């Protein structure tokens, strides 16, 4: 596998960029949403310090401030029913919260101090680090095969790239991480130049100015900037089987993609993805794999990173990135159908690349998307999250951007974009399975993997199965690695 050179730079200091950006959606609602987004994250973890960005944010949002202990913060937040959520991705770190206008002053004061005046207490550090280690070692490795496979895929796709390690970090790096490491990360990356302030709801007119004044206490800094070039997928298909004692087999597959919001082919690929794998809304994969064949609980495809999909139908906002991925995500299947299921996913991907989508599918999906985006942004907080992402990508309001772009799109545009950016080989494949050796043998033998159904099936399905059961996976033994689950996220 060859991956091109990646350059991480901090842009030259410029006063013009040193002020926070404000994204405002004022209104009359008594609920005020605040999103403080730093355009930094795991892609800027120092060498050997995987997880520093996430742990820094986790400690700021989950520890005490200079004036309040964690206990005092919880006590203060409790009657207001408020909290500050923290989310760290590769290039964005978000502190978000909603409060009733009654409590804005008190809530904002705590949220502000979390970032401007952190307490840096050793016991908070130990607790937050232990929680993170347990998320890796217990929650991901142990409790959730679907998310385990997806997270490993997200790392493997970016081998050799600043995105290549799990956002939470590695067990080894977290174990040796110190409070001083986090303070160093904070000092360098929590700058005015990296700050985007999102506000929605019935906040006072002078509130933005107040925030700007308060956050002038941060160093001016210069924007963190990621420059990635020549990212290439593997030469052959590559498979990783995570071996663990589990009753079913989960699959995730994908590759890096140089198309993001604002790029010319993004609307076309969004439409293609929606047709192929929109969550729970009758996408092609869902229809052929679950509805027709009953293989599992669901099968999806996305052209953007989508964490926590086990728990939500809609991707979260503020995980904007300069580089994106194409992914197919196959929920756990019964072990005897594992190889057939992978073949079917690859077969469907190959088919859409070779044949494209039809005029009818194009028209239907084009009418669906603009309305569905209204549903995605149904709350003010969600609308604010999308608005911040649009500012990051340099596009207008997302709903308008999509509506306008779809209006100009043709079927030919979509099928051309699919052929240009998607491929049915050179794919990273991740599986979570109990009998890894047998699965590897099945994947690499080239032998058919016929499927038995519990009910009669239509002839077109059975005819298609004859092709799918022999579909070439193009995996040689050297392309398939078996990793014990205890080693995943270890180093």
């Amino acid at each position, binding site marked *: 596998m060859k991956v091109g050179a990646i350059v991480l730079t901090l842009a030259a200091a410029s006063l013009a960029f040193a002020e926070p950006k404000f994204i405002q959606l004022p209104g009359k609602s008594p609920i005020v949403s605040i999103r403080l987004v730093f355009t930094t994250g795991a892609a800027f973890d120092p060498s050997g310090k995987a997880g520093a960005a996430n742990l820094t944010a986790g400690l700021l949002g989950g520890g005490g401030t200079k004036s309040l202990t964690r206990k005092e913060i919880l006590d203060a937040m409790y*009657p207001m029913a408020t909290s500050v959520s923290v989310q760290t991705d590769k290039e964005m770190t978000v502190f978000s919260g909603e409060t009733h206008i009654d409590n804005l002053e008190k809530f904002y004061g705590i949220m502000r101090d979390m970032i401007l005046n952190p307490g840096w207490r050793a016991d908070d550090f130990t607790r937050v680090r232990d929680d993170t280690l347990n998320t890796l070692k217990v929650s991901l490795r142990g409790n959730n095969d679907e998310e385990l496979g997806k997270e490993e895929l997200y790392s493997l796709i970016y081998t050799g790239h600043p995105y290549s390690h799990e956002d939470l970090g590695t067990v080894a790096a977290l174990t040796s991480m110190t409070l001083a490491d986090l303070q160093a990360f904070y000092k360098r990356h929590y700058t005015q130049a990296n700050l985007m302030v999102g506000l929605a709801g019935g906040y006072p007119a*002078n509130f933005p100015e107040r925030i700007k004044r308060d956050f002038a206490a941060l160093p001016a800094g210069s924007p963190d900037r990621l420059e990635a070039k020549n990212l290439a997928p593997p030469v052959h298909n590559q498979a990783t089987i995570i071996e663990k004692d589990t009753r079913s087999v989960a699959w995730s597959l994908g590759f890096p993609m140089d198309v993001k919001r604002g790029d010319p082919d993004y609307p076309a690929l969004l439409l293609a993805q929606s047709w192929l794998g929109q969550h729970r809304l009758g996408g092609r994969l869902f229809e052929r794999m679950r509805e027709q064949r009953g293989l599992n609980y669901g099968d999806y495809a996305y052209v953007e990173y989508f964490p926590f999909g086990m728990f939500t139908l809609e991707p979260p906002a503020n995980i904007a990135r300069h580089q994106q991925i194409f992914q197919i995500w196959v929920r756990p299947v019964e072990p005897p159908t594992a190889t057939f299921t992978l073949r079917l996913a690859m077969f469907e991907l190959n088919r859409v690349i070779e044949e494209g989508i039809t005029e009818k599918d194009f028209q239907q999906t084009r009418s669906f998307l603009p309305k*569905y985006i209204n549903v995605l942004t149904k709350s003010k907080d969600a609308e604010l999250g999308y608005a911040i992402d649009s500012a990051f990508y340099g596009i207008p309001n997302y709903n308008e951007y999509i509506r306008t772009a779809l209006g100009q799109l043709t079927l030919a545009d979509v099928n051309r974009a699919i052929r240009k950016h998607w491929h049915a080989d050179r794919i990273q494949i991740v599986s979570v399975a109990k009998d890894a050796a047998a699965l590897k043998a099945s994947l690499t033998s080239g032998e058919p993997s016929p499927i038995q159904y519990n009910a009669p099936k239509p002839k077109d399905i059975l005819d298609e199965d004859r092709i799918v059961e022999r579909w070439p996976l193009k995996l040689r033994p050297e392309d398939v690695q078996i990793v014990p689950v205890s080693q995943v996220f270890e180093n």
Partner: protein
Amino acid sequence: MRSQKLFAITLIAAVTLCLQAFGAGKIFPYPYVQEELPNGLRLITIPTEFPNIVSVFIVVGTGSRNEVEPGKSGFAHLFEHLMFRGTPEFPPDKYQATLRAAGAASNAFTTDDFTAYHTTFSKEDLPRVLSMEADRFQHLSFEPEAFKTETLAVLGEYNKNSANPASKLFETVRATAFENHTYRHTAMGFLADIQAMPNAYDYSRQFFDRYYRPENTTIIVAGDVEAKRVRSLVDERWGTWKRGNFKVRIPAEPPQEGARTAHVDWPSPTLPWISVSFHAPAYSEEGTDGIALDAISRLGFGNTSPLYQKLVITEQKTDVLRAGFSNHVDPELFTVTARVKKQSDVASVQQQILDTLVGFAGTPVDAAKLDTVKHRLRYQVALGLDNSEAVAELAARYVGLRKTPESMNREYENYDRLTPDDLQRAAKKFFTEKNRTIVTLSSEGGSK
């Protein structure tokens, strides 16, 4: 500096005004229209201030509680799936195509007591969505082949969750604490029953015939809507739905007469879990026992409780500590759950949980702390109602219990009157040794 001070003063004035208005009103703040059609179908229309979007929740008063026949657990949830298998007028592909044309987000969920089907979409598509939903609730049609395939999707859902020890812990708590009542199984059902589902096609038709009837169903329409127009749309397509007459007999759970324990050996590495449960009262608009247990769950085990502060924040012996009493039609459980970082601390953590519960029976709580809980709940509800889908879902939770969102207002009025004595009385009544079930879970080979 001057402007900052002015800002603070303005805010304080605003806070005073808002608090007066905020604390006084009903907890469910939206006026709504509730009607009953001649066939028994209930319709609740809730206009909201959120523009353009409408959310429809259709609540069927049947959950896993209704699964009374042995070997048939999980059927209410199976129906949540089967309802997407189409009708003669709207086969599955046409149904999906119509939803896609409407840009709708559509899904369903099953609880112990009810099943809810929900669709959120742009307001201009309301006639189309109501019409299509009317069709599938009256004319659902699935062949044995499609039925068998869908049962596999249900098994897939079980598989999806099966890697999580918390799912197994929950299953074991239910199966240990209950002997007769259908709450003995979770809404997913027993694995053996899920695996046997493909052979129960005829039973599935019977299940639909029994429960998918207008007198057992409530339609909630929330968002950018007008009640008269919604009523006329519902009359048009739902008025022909025929009443049923099935009455289910849910087996009563006898009082538990002795402490119970169980242990789960988990096949792969995990941190150990503890669950301490007590049989608890059914949902009631009149009594205070249920809300008293809810308050205890918050005061005793919430993130500001002394035990949480000790075990999670200070000593850092557990990374999960939570308690819950959730509203149910019949008596269910009050449960405290903890995930412990070291096996050697399990016994000590368990004892501290028990001591905390005993403490509520021994000493009345501080009234000011109870007021803090009441205050929080009001803000929590207000903050959650930030879109029409959330409004409809909250209404659905109470419709599933008492067929009207008004029940929520009554519950919170009772909450406002709750006293420390109520908490102490409930603790004495329910936190007894003979009413208790403790389930532990650890990696195979861990101490039990």
